[in-house]
């Protein structure tokens, strides 16, 4: 089924890209790989009958946030991460925090997997219902957004304002107006 193929391909790309993101030494490469991952994710959203979210993903994430990251990386001339001796060592042999991190990640996956296995209904296929049109309808999205979630919508706008101001203040140089 084409849908399954799409799913596996896209998710595979996404996971692989993400894995590479955290594996790269050069942050520039990390950013670019993450863009790839986001693109794959957008594709997955389309498979899930959420075109609006997919577009938003590409515009906001891949278009704005990642560009912002790129700016910062290039601005700071982020040096190559110190290839400290242990960086080349296999993650499981790295000392301290790294080991904990990996351990926790594994534990988390295990937990989530276990949780999932408990929920029986999960095996029913997504998209079995015939309301793909409804779900994917931008009109419907807008209607719900501005009626039930209107407060959250407004609050979010304030949030963005605050973040903007905060970012300006924080990044200002001393003595600048």
């Amino acid at each position, binding site marked *: 089924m084409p849908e399954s193929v799409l799913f596996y391909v896209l998710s595979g790309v996404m996971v692989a890209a993400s894995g590479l993101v955290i594996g790269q030494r050069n942050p520039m490469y990390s950013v670019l790989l993450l863009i790839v991952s986001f693109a794959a994710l957008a594709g997955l959203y389309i498979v899930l009958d959420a075109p609006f979210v997919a577009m938003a993903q590409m515009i906001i994430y891949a278009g704005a946030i990642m560009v912002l990251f790129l700016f910062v990386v290039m601005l700071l001339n982020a040096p190559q991460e110190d290839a400290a001796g242990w960086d080349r060592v296999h993650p499981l042999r790295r000392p301290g*925090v790294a080991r*904990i*991190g990996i351990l*926790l990640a594994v*534990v*988390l996956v295990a*937990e*989530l997997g*276990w*949780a999932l296995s*408990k929920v029986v209904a999960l095996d029913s296929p997504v998209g079995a219902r015939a309301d793909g049109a409804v779900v994917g309808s931008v009109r419907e999205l807008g209607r719900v957004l501005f009626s039930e979630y209107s407060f959250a919508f407004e609050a979010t706008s304030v949030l963005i304002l605050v973040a903007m101001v905060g970012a300006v203040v924080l990044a200002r140089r001393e003595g600048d107006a």
Partner: protein
Amino acid sequence: MTSPLIALIPLLPLAGFVVNSTMGKRLPKSVSGGLASLVMLASFAIAALTVWQLAGLAPDERLITQTLYRWMSSGEFTLDVTLLVDPLSAVMLLVVTGIGSLIHIYSTAYMHDEVDSEFARYFSYLNLFAAFMLVLVLGSSLPVLFVGWEGVGLCSYLLIGFWFKKKSAADAGKKAFIVNRIGDYAFLLGMFALFAMFGTLEMRGIASAVAARPVETGFGVLSLATLLLFIGATGKSAQIPLYVWLPDAMEGPTPVSALIHAATMVTAGVYMIGRNAVLFSHTPETMQIVAVVGAATALMAGSIGLVQNDIKRVLAYSTVSQLGLMFLAMGVGAFGAGIFHLYTHAFFKACLFLGSGAVIHALHGEQDIRNMGGLKKYLPVTYWTFVIGSLALAGFPFLAGFFSKDELLFETFAEGHQILWAVGALASLLTAIYMGRLVFLTFHGERRHDAPAAADAHGGHGHGHGAHGGHPHDAPPAMALVLIVLAIGSVGAGYVGIPAALGGHNALGAWLAPSFAPPVAAGRAVAGEAAAEAGGEAEAHDEEHIALERTLMSVSSAIAIGGILVAAFVWLQRREIAANMARSFAPLHRLLLNKYYVDELYEATIVQPVQAVSRDGLWRGVDVGVIDGAVNGVGAIVNASAGVLRRLQTGSVRAYAGSLFIGVVLMLGYYLWR
């Protein structure tokens, strides 16, 4: 009847105390001393007036009271502070205020060398003591009596340790107070027991309630209560086992010894038993104990006094011994005789102490009789008053002590306690001997003391007199006058109690009888019985009684005179006999000289263990270890845990993120588990 004046009797000395304690430093000696003596004399005058009023009443109704205010009321129990004058307290009042005034006057001369502020402090304490003693005597209920009881204990401590910069004096004061306290504790327990049994603490109320009951057979609760009261009395009146403070109390100024430890405070125990005569009469078991303890103490103290070398110590042990005789009298039911002896003893013992004070004053602080002698020609007034006092104490016929001691011993014998009589007689013999020894060593023989400036061993009694031409001077007028008055009293005080055997009618006994009877004559039989037990002589008119009394009287006289002659022989003629006896009976001599090692015994069995428990157990163990340890431990725990916990603050962002994440994982796990 009531009278508004009674309250003045203790209040006047109290006012004297207030003035002297607050303003004494600024007053010249004549003012502070004069004021103190004046309030005492005024108090005496009012007491005399009240007694005269009392005498005007019929014998059954001799009771004057004054209620001051309500002290406590709790539920149905109320207690008023009421002052009461009846025949017994009349006698005590006159003794306290009369002899108290005399001693105040004596003190103005004796303490003259002190600085103004110390002089005033002395008189403030003396007045305070008088106030408390009067409260003790006038109180109509046990708590009021106890207030006075405690108060005189306090003043005793203050006055014994008057020269507190001297360690032995300060220690003696503490010893007196603490030993008294032990007795007071027993007294309190006795009070509680009586309250539990009778619901009232008014002594007359208790007497009425007790009179309605039969005499207790065996040792029951009532006997226990009276025994506890008696133990309190042993503390205050220096009987076995709590007498150890009295000899040490001689560290205080001599007038203090005269007033507190001879005439008044130590007699409080005797008075207390007399006041509760009905109660005690109903507990024969306790009375037996009282009599035995009294007799034993008399003998023991007499034996110790025989070998002591400090003039005041001899008199101190003599006091303990005479108190023992008083308790013997109370214990056999001769309450009137005991109070009679108390009254005469106040005269001659005060006279003796003050006389010894004059000697010490003349010799600039010398108190060891081995360093005295030949003072007869230098101190005539002192000598003759001292001799009169000694004879009275020894029981020389027709002096005051003769009548009271004789009556006491007679009653003991008549009540059937022949063994106790023998003990009492033996104690009297010892009294005669050691008093003779004291007089002869101090005043007779060749002079052994050095020129006045030399000996200053005992007492912080600094003297300004330098050159006297090398011989001691007699007592100054104030002191001499008091000595003479007391000597006269030592002779004449006994004549109020001339027994029937000699033709008198024992006026004192008859006067005191109503005090020892139950307040309400609950049946003539009981009243008659109590009166008979108490006054003693009121009914003893049969020939047999009189013949017995005359016989015993002659025995007592023989003992007294014999003892004095023995003393004269040994210490006047052949001193070497005493030395030889001391050598040949050396262990016994040492035992007596060291007061039967009682102090050492108490030290080892009581003081050291208590100290050890306090020091090692409670102080080091509990206070330092547990309490400090707990408090410090809390601090240490906080410190330690902080030391551990602060390692969380690594400053590393990733570590913080890590801990965040661990939390997330754990919570997730928890919720998934559920």
